[in-house]
């Protein structure tokens, strides 16, 4: 059994990041896109915690940071969902491709 090192975790978080990015780019459903953003944020959390644990374990900066990120992500999601609901009211859809009126 290999002890997971920093690089493993970073690898996972990077993967998570790109999965999130990929999801954000390709999903048409607004809520799914929001979930993809959460994936990105979680990859960041993972980063912080890993750095804190493996490199800078004398202070708890990373840990705190990730806690705040989780909190903010919740707030952001709340507002985003509110907006999406509103969008649904007016557009009768939460497909991102239905909301492309503003352009050029």
């Amino acid at each position, binding site marked *: 059994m290999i002890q997971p090192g920093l690089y493993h975790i970073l690898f996972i978080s990077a993967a998570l990041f790109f999965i999130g990015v990929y999801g954000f*780019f390709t999903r048409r459903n607004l809520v799914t896109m929001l979930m993809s953003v959460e994936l990105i944020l979680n990859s960041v959390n993972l980063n912080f915690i890993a750095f804190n644990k493996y490199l800078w374990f004398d202070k708890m900066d990373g840990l705190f940071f990730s806690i705040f990120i989780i909190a903010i992500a919740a707030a952001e999601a709340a507002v985003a969902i509110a907006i999406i609901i509103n969008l649904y009211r007016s557009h009768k859809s939460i497909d991102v491709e239905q909301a492309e009126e503003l*352009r050029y």
Partner: protein
Amino acid sequence: MPNTTLILLIILLPLAGFVMLGIYGRKFFRNTSGVIATSLLLLSTALAFYTAYGYFFKYGKTGGVYQKLVPLKYTWLQFSPGLSIDMGIIIDPISVMMLVVVTFVSLMVHVFSLGYMKGDERFPTYYAFLGLFTFSMLGLVVSSNIFQIYFFWELVGVSSFLLIGYHYDKPSAVAACKKAFIVTRFADVGFLIGILVLSYSSGTLDFNTLIATLTSPQTNEYKNAIAASFLGISALTWGLVLVFIGAAGKSAMFPLHIWLPDAMEGPTPVSALIHAATMVVAGVFLVARLFPVFAIVVPSALNLVAYVGAFSALFAAVIACTQTDIKRVLAYSTMSQIGYMMFALGVSKYGGENGLGYTASMFHLFTHAMFKALLFLGAGAVIHFVHSNEMKDMGGLRKLMPITHLTFLIGCLAIAGVPPFAGFFSKEEILLAAYQHNQSIYWIALIISALTAFYMFRLYFQIFWNKEHHPHGEHHGEGGLSMMMPLVLLAIGAAVAGFIPFGHFVSSDGTRLDTGFHLQFSIAPVALCLAGIFIAMRLYKKQNAMPQKLAASLKGFYKAAYHKFYIDEVYHFITKKIIFNLIGRPAAWFDKYIVDGLVNATGNGTEDFSATIKKFQSGKVQSYAIYFLAGAIGLALLFIYIWK
């Protein structure tokens, strides 16, 4: 010493007339303007005669040599410490002579116009213009500075322009005044550049200093001017040739003569004043002014003057034989006579006996002013009478206009060179000078003198003899005293001016020059001239078919001469076709489509580019995010790998 105030008054009185009549004439002096202008000029003339008397007989001579006096010099425009345009007065034989000629002829014209222009709507304007012209011409002749002469040179050109275009509602007059101005303007550019060259070479613009510097071989300026060369010709030669181009333009020398015949569109007294007696000889005067430099330093330039003068004289004489408009005949005759003066200068040398040509030229200028003004005014009286310029409308006027007839005849005799009239003496001297220094020109001159006699008497007979005149309706006599008096006075001048011992007063170096009368030498020219008169009499005294036959036998040549050898057409081709179509049009096209087009293209290009990149703003939030990430990663790569 000369009285500066008086001399200044000679010049400024006509200017005062111009300013007063120009501004207030239409309001206050509608009818009196002629009298005002004439009396001003009378004063001016009297002063000119007084000055001439004083100069020639009292204070002008020092040690047997007439001095160049500069009683007034005012720095008008200082270019740099050495170079300045000074407004000055130079008093020397030729300027004094010119003062007399200009004021006198101008006075005659003023008086004549009182009758000739009576009732004209723009009477005050006419006199204002005459005043302006007289002022400019007087300013020109007394100029002490080469730039001053250019200054008045241009003013003279403008007043000529204004007077030619006096009948401004006639399109032909408008065309003529434009042509006169532009052609002389073209020549003036040569003059201007010539001035620049000379001033740079000599370091001064002042005539006396300039001549002194450039004729003394010790000065550095002289050495530099000779050494500096462009296209293998020395700077000085260039300068003089360029100045001569200016002179040729004003004096209607071939090929810059085309404006003169057209200038006859002006009122006839104006032609008498400007285009016969005074302005057109300005070129001769200019060459005479710079004569020492021409003669001593650059004989090659003087040769050019001689040949251009001789050719123009011959050329004009030939054309004059074929013209039917009496003023045009006179115009070509003027050109021919000025050619005479030019080549007289051209064959002259500086100083002493060798300077005969110079004296002769000035003498001819003087006498020519008398008889040519006379002839023009006579022609004016005729035109006034028949209301036409064409010979075919005239004939047999000798009974209807006895005084005009007589004076005109005197004029013709004088110009033809029949002794003892004025023209005989001056021509005699010119021929002698040519004979002494340049034989080929002498022969040409002889031919011209025969031609002159012929065409002048052709004119004379056509007007006063030939067919009988049938006046349509009532006619109003010869014109009043105001028209006859100048004719008579000028006729007297034309008859007796020749007896003045001109060489005593005017010579190339200011010393006294005795010009004898050489009987055996005069035989040939007088004989030729009588022959010319005789032929003219045979052909034109009675109405007959001979002139047509003669013309038919000379077919091609006659036609060419009648059309003034197509010089006008050549110019027309050059200006209209070449300058307009090959330079003007392309320049305008270039400006519109290339320069302007580039500016517009920049604007349009920007807009087009902006339209093509609008699709980046697609409205898709996901593609925004893609650009976002791509931007971040792209910048990161750029700075990590490339811009390290």
